[in-house]
């Protein structure tokens, strides 16, 4: 069973979302997603300042098995990306909820947070997929 931390929110496309104390959110891909992808060898992220709408393609993850799009789970402006992934993309595999985060968003519509899955809902989704 993949790790699904209770304090995070999720979307069905396997991104996780952490709401920070200043109202911004941090985004990454889940343990389940990184396990499906296999060893990650490259992550292409949106530039800081990019405006994204929920569901937009926000980047690409290349693993040894496949390349897969990253999606914006919420609408907002990219205010920071994880530059460590440029040199160390394997952080997505080794620490998906920590050092393997992708980008931070300043939300443009906080009501979208209500549409996110909680840990139980996401775990059920993963269970259904397996």
């Amino acid at each position, binding site marked *: 069973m993949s790790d699904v931390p209770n304090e995070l929110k999720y979307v069905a496309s396997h991104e996780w979302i952490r709401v920070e104390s200043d109202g911004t959110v941090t985004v990454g891909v889940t343990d389940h997603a990184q396990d*499906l992808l296999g060893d990650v*060898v490259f992550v*292409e992220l949106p530039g800081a300042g990019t405006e994204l709408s929920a569901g937009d*393609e926000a980047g690409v993850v290349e693993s040894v*098995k496949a*390349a897969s799009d990253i999606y914006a789970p919420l609408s907002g402006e990219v205010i920071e990306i994880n530059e460590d992934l440029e040199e160390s993309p394997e952080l997505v595999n080794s620490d998906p909820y920590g050092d393997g985060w992708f980008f931070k968003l300043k939300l443009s519509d906080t009501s979208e947070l209500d549409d996110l899955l909680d840990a139980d809902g996401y775990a059920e*989704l993963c269970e*259904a997929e397996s």
Partner: protein
Amino acid sequence: MATHRDPALAILDPHEGLRREMALLQSVVDGDRQAGLLLWRCAPSIVVPRRLTHKPGFDRACEAMAGRGWPVIVRDTGGDLTPQSPGLINVALAFRQRRADGGIRDSYLKLCNPLIDCLRGLGIEAYCASVEGAFCDGDYNLVVGGRKLAGTAQRWRKLAPATGAADDMFAVLAHAVILVDEDLDTLWHVGNAFYRHCGLEARIDERLHVSLAELLPDAGPALLEQSLERFRACFDDCLQSPCDTSDQ
């Protein structure tokens, strides 16, 4: 003047070939079709995954290789460097796939199993395996007697909401490049020259590959055209209605 009985025999500029592949994938993303097939041949070039574009020596390597008549083009399906030339056949299969445990494996098998069956019909026993040191190595190379005959890669994208598909249903482009009838040593020398110019330690071991022409020494000059016909036919079953094929 030569005429092309099969449109896939035309040699495409690599940008155009890759554009057609992504258009095929997009048509599945948009729900315009459930699945589709594209076969094509590529003008001499070096196709690389996006990750190599971030290497410090990438621009220098592109300039050096373009000067030798081998332009470098970026593709969106991951994998590793792949020299392209008209003696190779590209097979791109797009379809819907659940992103569940084993989804990537299943997608590779959708591409590889029909090709393995096709090759068996020619008396060639191929299988999926890694060949360390071969070009664009991965677990789903098509291998014959320990030597690599084809490389594979995949791109996954979400289906458009308008398709009404379940959240875990994705569009996949699974791609193979098959070594049919080519001077392979030239390809590997070119690939290794790119790696050197780019400052990378990776090298392709030329001894680890085999072409269809080598496996079928009596095939004659029609091998490419016959191979295209066979490869297309082997996907008929998985492209039955409502699936379709495309050479556009």
